């Protein structure tokens, strides 16, 4: 909500001087709550996600602070279980899944297409309301019994737990529909609303990623919906599908759950890949290396992602043959992921690398995601997984991938912030925030790899003394990480009030969102621009008198 208030209040005094844009053309809270403008809806998502990120972060710090000296009993075991569960649920369902697709996807996709809006603007607003309802329900849970099952909601504990699984289940169910409808909207928009000249191989790679994400959302999320519905039925009527006491099959729940939740990992990562492709090329001012390979690998990941869920069940009583097949397919997913990483590295080669804040976040991602991806192969290998399953090794592995995604998300916010708000952020502070996030991240999770491989199980309230050094370093790192996030938030909000006015094309990008003014017109473009090569930087010129980049097709 901060964003809403800021933009209308901050813009008002300079109204005469400033040209008409999507932020100042209508005022008042109602003009936001009933808007069908994709740009405003994107910002409304950002407001909710910002609140959720703060809460999820506080819970994580509570867990880490408790683990600094568990003998102090800062949290009771019940509270501890609640904290890590709520941290997981909030970060996954309220922050990372909607983060890039709903905020940047909404804001950037139609602009990159030179379109006036997404294909279904009202549906888009409806999706936001669904999401907001889910967020409110999740927050209500905090005060009505909480949740102590772990974010995975495994049965039979979740079907009998006295914590408020029902409300969280309903919240996730509703947010699932928000996710489905957003994915559907993006797919239809990209498929049917491309401008003249934009063939599928001239689409910016972020659009490929948004499309691939839509595919995964549409395949995976309905299965989550039915799983949660069955879980709710199990709690209310004990229907006997998942609860062994009633004749059900608890492992069936794990299959159902991971059929969604593993692809969900790629719902989070694939859009980040898309943002990466944009950040890397724009900030090296070099055309992307291996366009088609990156584009196709997004789709390959989307398809492979829905057939690897069984690697979460290696120790759940799956037959060995099934496990071997899932293990092999899991290794196969590494191929398209590696293709992307190598292509980005090749893009950097002999590029003119500018160490701007978005670029620092992108480079952090390359390093962090590299480790996260490679340790994923450890977990996908059958024998090693038996050893590392449910240890801190797994925790470190997925935080390396997920915080990698968050890094790209923050890099993306910095990158498009001049377009979104019309103001420049503070570059030095931005670079400092990127460095803090990077150092904090490594310090928090590298020790977790080590203690995990030494056998420290995840989710434990207590640990033997031999792990205290690892835990202390990890907790110290988490404070640095938190400081980094706080600095990002401060910098972005500071920019709204005190930032320099942003030019239309601050980075010299060649995709179409930079063709319109910053912030964009209410309807984006006066007339539809014609698309060319989105990565041809020779057509963007530096004007030495105006001290800014001139796009080939200025509105």
């Amino acid at each position: 909500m901060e964003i809403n208030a800021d933009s209308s209040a901050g813009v008002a005094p300079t109204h005469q001087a400033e040209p008409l844009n999507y932020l100042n053309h209508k005022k008042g809270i109602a003009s936001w709550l009933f808007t069908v403008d994709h740009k405003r809806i994107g910002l409304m998502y950002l407001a909710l996600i910002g609140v959720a990120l703060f809460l999820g972060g506080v819970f994580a710090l509570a867990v880490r602070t408790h683990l600094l000296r568990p003998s102090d009993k800062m949290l009771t075991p019940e509270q501890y279980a609640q904290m890590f569960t709520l941290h997981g649920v909030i970060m996954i369902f309220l922050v990372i899944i909607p983060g890039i697709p709903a905020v940047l996807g909404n804001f950037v996709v139609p602009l990159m297409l030179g379109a006036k809006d997404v294909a279904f603007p009202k549906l888009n607003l409806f999706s936001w309301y669904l999401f907001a309802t889910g967020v409110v329900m999740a927050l209500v849970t905090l005060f009505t019994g909480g949740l102590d099952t772990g974010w995975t909601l495994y049965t039979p504990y979740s079907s009998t737990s006295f914590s408020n699984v029902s409300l969280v289940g309903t919240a996730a169910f509703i947010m699932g529909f928000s996710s489905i409808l957003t994915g559907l909207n993006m797919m239809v928009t990209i498929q049917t609303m491309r401008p003249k000249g934009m063939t599928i191989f001239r689409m910016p790679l972020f659009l490929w990623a948004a499309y691939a994400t839509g595919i995964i959302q549409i395949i995976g999320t309905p299965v989550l919906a039915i799983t949660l519905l069955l879980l709710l039925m199990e709690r209310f009527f004990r229907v006997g599908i998942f609860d062994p006491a009633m004749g059900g099959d608890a492992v069936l729940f794990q299959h159902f759950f991971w059929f969604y939740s593993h692809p969900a990992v790629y719902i989070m990562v694939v859009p980040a890949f898309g943002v990466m492709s944009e950040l890397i090329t724009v900030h090296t001012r070099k055309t992307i290396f291996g366009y088609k390979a990156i584009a196709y690998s997004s789709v390959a990941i989307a398809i492979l992602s829905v057939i690897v869920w069984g690697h979460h069940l290696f120790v759940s009583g799956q037959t060995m043959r099934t496990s071997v097949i899932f293990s092999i397919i899991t290794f196969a997913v590494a191929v398209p992921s590696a293709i992307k990483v190598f292509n980005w590295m090749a893009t950097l080669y002999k590029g003119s690398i500018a160490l701007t804040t978005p670029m620092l976040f992108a480079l952090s991602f390359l390093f962090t995601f590299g480790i996260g991806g490679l340790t994923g192969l450890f977990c996908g290998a059958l024998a090693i997984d038996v050893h590392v399953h449910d240890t801190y090794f797994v925790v470190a592995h997925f935080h390396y991938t997920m915080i990698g995604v968050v890094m790209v998300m923050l890099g993306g916010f910095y990158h498009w912030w001049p377009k979104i708000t019309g103001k420049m952020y503070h570059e030095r502070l931005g670079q400092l925030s990127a460095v803090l996030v990077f150092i904090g991240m490594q310090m928090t999770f590298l020790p977790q790899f080590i203690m995990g491989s030494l056998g420290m199980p995840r989710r434990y309230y207590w640990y033997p003394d031999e792990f205290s050094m690892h835990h202390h370093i990890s907790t110290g790192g988490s404070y640095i990480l938190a400081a980094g996030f706080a600095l990002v938030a401060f910098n972005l909000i500071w920019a709204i009030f005190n930032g320099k006015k942003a030019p239309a094309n601050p980075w010299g990008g060649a995709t179409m969102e930079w063709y319109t003014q910053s912030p964009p017109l209410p309807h984006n473009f006066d007339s539809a621009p014609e698309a060319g090569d989105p990565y041809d930087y020779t057509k963007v010129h530096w004007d030495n008198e105006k001290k800014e980049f001139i796009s080939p097709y200025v509105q």
Partner: protein
Amino acid sequence: MSDSHAHHDPHLAHHFDSHKQQFTAQKLGMWLFLATEVLMFGGLFVAYSVFRYNHPQMFHEGHKHLNWILGATNTVILLFSSFTMAMAVRCAQLGNNKAVIRFLAVTFACALGFMCIKYVEYSEKIAHGHLLGNLYDFEHKSEGAEGEGHSAVTHESTEDASRKSTESKPEAETQEEAAARIEGEKNQHVFFSLYFMMTGLHGIHVLVGMAIMIWLFLRARKNEFTPTHFAAVDLSGLYWHIVDIVWIFLFPLFYLIS
């Protein structure tokens, strides 16, 4: 500028360039939505398959409590309603709003008939205590009310089960068959959980379809559908066919097992 032009045409949203683009987008959106519907029902069908594979006897015993004549009647009704819905779409494409109203009315009547028959079936199940999960009549309280041979039994009262089953079919079956049947009579509440959840979710979709038909009906009365502007009827038709197709699978899977 296409913007000012768009304001002359109330049927073309401002962010689309042409009717063709708008229609393509709407149609693609609907197909993607239907894909999610299929996947959502797909989860239930997978659950069905897993339990059917692991406990075939449970399904065999359970289906005896379902009335296949009512099920078959409902199948015919829904198939016919799909035909009338297709005719409504055709008439909307031709801009014949009067005929759209007529065909929608018939389709609506079919949907209503379907729900009435479902009501009769559900009432019968409820009267006999054949309900889902812990609502299932484990104690056979409603046993006396009707003359069913062997009502279902849970694992909690297996002794009771063997006694009852020997009473109902004393000499016709071998020991093996009896064992299989007792096995099947266990966990009958799971069969009815699946039955109620799958037909229930389908029933909710029928109700939604009926609401959509009322909306289309009101729009057709205002003569809103023209040969260039019939997407609402067309896409609702697609939805209705999916509702029909789901039933086509539900009917044999529950009523026609043997």
